[in-house]
């Protein structure tokens, strides 16, 4: 179920604005990869190119290739809708559908993809996804209540349950804990560690301890100067990045002397 991602010479643009320059990297399956870096250096932008969500923004485009198990996402004839079904995404702010109940939220993606499902199969799937997101015990008695009535941390886990319910190959998370309290953050971090047994997980975080705690590999993005495109400065095992970085900029950022 988990797949490997190869990015080759990827340039990312918003209209004429060159946001991220020349990224080449390999993301291993069944691992957690974290992206760190100062605000505005293009972490979110890069993450969104991995499931073709970048192009949702008018004028946004990319140049280069992203291969998932050797298949180029940006090859001619590839439907972005299919890509997004393989590569799930969790956003910075929890965004359950406000008009749907907890259960409907979990099943929202499945309902889009496979038209029909028996009531029993739906119940089982919802339970499996909610258990997978460590949320089942908290919501099992109020599955028909609105998803927007949960706490922020619970909403974010609901969004993770929604993403894993469609059984993607890869899960992308853009600062999934930045809107959450420390306890909820811990719950999500535990969950991320669990998820890597089944999925390729890519996470953006501004919290370096978090990157150190949960990830196997870490990529450091940086800007040379404002107005310049962001770049992938260094990409290595999390151990190396935090203890023994090759680049001076990485070391400065890690040690808090920068950004």
């Amino acid at each position, binding site marked *: 179920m988990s797949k490997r991602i190869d990015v080759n010479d990827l340039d990312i643009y918003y209209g004429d604005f060159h946001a991220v320059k020349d990224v080449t990297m390999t993301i291993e399956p069944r691992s957690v990869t974290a992206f760190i870096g100062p605000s505005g250096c293009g972490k979110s932008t890069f993450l969104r190119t991995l499931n073709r969500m970048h192009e949702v923004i008018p004028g946004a485009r990319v140049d280069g290739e992203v291969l998932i198990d050797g298949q180029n996402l940006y090859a001619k004839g590839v439907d972005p809708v299919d890509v997004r079904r393989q590569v*799930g995404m969790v*956003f910075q*702010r929890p*965004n359950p559908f406000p*008009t749907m109940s907890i259960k409907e939220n979990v099943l929202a*993606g499945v309902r889009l*993809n496979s038209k029909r499902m028996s009531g029993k199969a739906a119940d089982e799937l919802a339970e499996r996804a909610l258990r997978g997101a460590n949320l089942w015990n908290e919501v099992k008695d109020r599955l028909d209540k*609105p998803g*927007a009535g949960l706490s922020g941390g619970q909403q974010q886990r609901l969004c993770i349950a929604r993403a894993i319910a469609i059984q993607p190959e890869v899960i992308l998370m853009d600062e999934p804990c930045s809107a959450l309290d420390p306890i909820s953050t811990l719950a999500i971090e535990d969950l991320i560690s669990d998820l890597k047994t089944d999925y390729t997980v890519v996470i953006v975080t501004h919290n370096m301890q978090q990157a150190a705690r949960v990830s196997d590999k870490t990529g450091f993005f940086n800007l040379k100067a404002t107005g310049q495109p962001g770049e992938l400065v260094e990409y290595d095992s999390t151990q190396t990045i935090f203890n023994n970085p090759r680049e001076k900029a990485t070391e400065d950022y890690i040690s808090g002397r920068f950004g």
Partner: protein
Amino acid sequence: MTATPTPARRQPSSAKPVRRPGDLFFSSASIGSATIILLTLAGVAVFLLIEALPALTAPADEVSGGAGFAGYVWPLVVGTVVASLVAMVLATPVAVGIALFVSHYAPRRLGQSIGFVIDLLAAVPSVVFGMWGMSVFAPRLVPLYEWLEQNLGFIPLFADASTSGRTLMTASIVLAVMILPIITAVSREVFLQTPSLHEEAALALGATKWEMIRTAVLPFGMPGVIGGTMLGLGRALGETMAVAIILSPGIFTWNLIGSGNNTIPAEIALNFPEAAGLRLSELIAAGLVLFVITLAVNLFARWIVDRRAEFSGAN
């Protein structure tokens, strides 16, 4: 959005809350306006009731039609409600479609121009709609009505086609065109308000554009669409001139494609100038009935919207 309680920055509890002059001014101004609205409404209701009383209490054979006020007014009620509902049913899907096109499909420029043109439609006086409906549109519908009579004539609604096309159906279609801008404008605004967070949530789950609209945009906009539809329905219920000009009124019939039927506002507009005495009272009583219908429609709409309030996303 959750209404976050403002951070507690309390004075010692003995201190009285400070009433700032600005707050005081705005709260009395808004309470005043609300009171004026309610008083006006109550005044209108009382006026209608007093003026209507002679018709409501008159012996049955003195009222137009000779069957009492109820006998006089119910065909008008049916005509009004049928015309407005048909207009609403025709206009709402088109309006929602246009609103979606403008808000989510059309390139920005094109969307704005289309929105502008639709808004212009709202500025056309209803007499113009009436004249156009009677002289231009009605004759063009005659072949359609003839086809309906020939092929669906077994349905009482399509029993007998008019030769002039000046029917309740034509009036309803023109009403639909007239209320289209209201429903479109309101729907477009709420669709544009859809949080991109929800749209992206749907897209990231592998929704196609249409699926994204179905899962994120439409549910979010539904209360607004219902509100716009009710505004439109209100306009259709109260429209006088267009119906009075287009429709060839007459006795009540279920046949929508022939002459006959009338609506309360058109009946009032047509006959008010010559009315005196009991006839005048009849017309005002009919106006009272329309007032009650409109009130009921609004309460019903409110109830529909409130029923799903828990899921509105506005909690």
